[in-house]
């Protein structure tokens, strides 16, 4: 057995000769070298002059291509931000770190810009809603929105989670019929804002963390609101009286003027006095 094996091996080896392997190698090497020379010359002649700043910015961007900046992708954003420095703070996923790096590359001072994050202007979980009908239709907000009175509140969160499906970053949970943003994951791309048929989600600059928001969107009068919701804004104006700078009324809904969002004492007093506990703190550092 050993003997026949050796003979087979010997026959195989005899098929090769060292010189033919050498010739094959040298031939391919020579052909390859010719193309190396051609390509090197072509590379020098046909070099594309790309703006080095664009390339540098492209490298530090997160590369998520989420489109949150309003441009087609990270490449388009890098090109745009070089031309228009005002776009610098638009990169949601990158956040402040990226803004600083872009500013360093562009050689300008970055002004303190707050990253935008999604907030949900509703706080009514299933138990807080007062509904006269029970909806058994398609489990999708977009479909349910077509049905009159799917939940009695014409403004509140439907809770079928179209926003959670739209979120690329798994930053939205549906908890008992209410969309909850997980700020550890949210990058402020705004996909949920586009998806929500009731326009309940808004992108707000997080000036402070946690940030106070009014968790209701109902513009209805108190009588109606009490009819369909246990936590909705009844338009009592207590907050406006306590902190007239920060709060204002929009029909029967209190809204926060974030331009004048500063006095913590005033807004905490308003929060305590609010009969519906509507002012909630959201953000990474909020307790809930």
């Amino acid at each position, binding site marked *: 057995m050993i003997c026949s094996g050796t003979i087979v091996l010997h026959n195989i080896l005899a098929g090769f000769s060292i010189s033919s392997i050498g010739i094959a190698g040298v031939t391919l090497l020579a*052909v*390859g070298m010719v193309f190396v020379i051609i390509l090197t010359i072509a590379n020098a002649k*046909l070099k594309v002059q790309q703006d080095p700043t664009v390339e540098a910015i492209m490298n530090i961007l997160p590369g998520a291509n989420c489109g949150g900046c309003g441009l087609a992708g990270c490449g388009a954003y890098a090109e745009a931000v070089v031309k228009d420095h005002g776009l610098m703070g638009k990169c949601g996923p990158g956040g402040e770190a990226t803004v600083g790096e872009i500013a360093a590359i562009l050689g300008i001072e970055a002004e303190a810009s707050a990253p935008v994050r999604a907030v949900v202007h509703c706080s009514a979980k299933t138990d807080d809603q007062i509904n006269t009908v029970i909806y058994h239709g398609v489990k999708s907000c977009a479909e349910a929105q077509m049905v009159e009175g799917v939940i009695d509140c014409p403004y509140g969160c439907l809770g079928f989670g179209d926003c959670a499906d739209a979120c690329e970053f798994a930053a939205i949970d549906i908890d008992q019929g209410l969309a909850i943003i997980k700020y550890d994951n949210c990058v402020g791309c705004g996909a949920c804002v586009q998806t929500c048929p009731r326009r309940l989600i808004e992108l707000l600059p997080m000036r402070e963390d946690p940030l106070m928001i009014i968790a209701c969107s109902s513009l209805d009068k108190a009588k109606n609101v009490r009819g369909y919701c246990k936590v909705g804004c009844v338009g009592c104006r207590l907050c406006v009286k306590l902190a007239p700078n920060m709060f204002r009324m929009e029909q029967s809904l209190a809204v926060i003027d974030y331009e004048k969002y500063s006095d913590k004492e005033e807004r905490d007093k308003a929060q305590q006095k609010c009969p519906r506990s509507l002012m909630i703190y959201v953000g990474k550092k909020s307790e809930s």
Partner: protein
Amino acid sequence: MNSETSLIMVFISLAIVNNLVLIKFLGICPYLGVSKRVDMAFGMGCAVTFVITISGTVTWLINNLILQKIGMGYLKYIAFIMVIASMVQLVEMYVRKFFPSLYESFGIFLPLITTNCAILGTCLFIDLWDFTFLQAVVASFGGGLGFTLVICMMGGIREHLEWADVPKALKGAGITLITAGIMTLAFMGFSGMI
């Protein structure tokens, strides 16, 4: 048959009768991938034609003047691939420099010409059919033009399909493949011409 007639025959053979895409089923990937619009399809056709022509010519030279002379015919696959890859690099640099928008719209399909089997196929057919040098040049150019013709036709049809009332189940790739099949049937009519 004198040499001019034979050249014309070779040209028609590669461009229409033995069309790379529809008869030999080579290069289907860009044929389906980059044929959404006529202008893109034409750009891709031009790039492939250029690469095929140069590759066909250069590979004939390498094969007949070097490899066959030293009895290393078995090296042709490696050598051909090397030629094609280099040519694609050249085209990529050229397109990037002079047609940036075309470069953007090609995306991955431009470097993928390297692995376009239509090109290696043409080079190997030229070797298989024992063409002379002139025939090889004409054949590879004809093959490229045939590819361009077919991919542009496909682009035109697909532009119209955008507006057609296609059954939901067949939308997209389904109707495109059916179209490709019907085009192949039409091109079968050319068989036996040469």
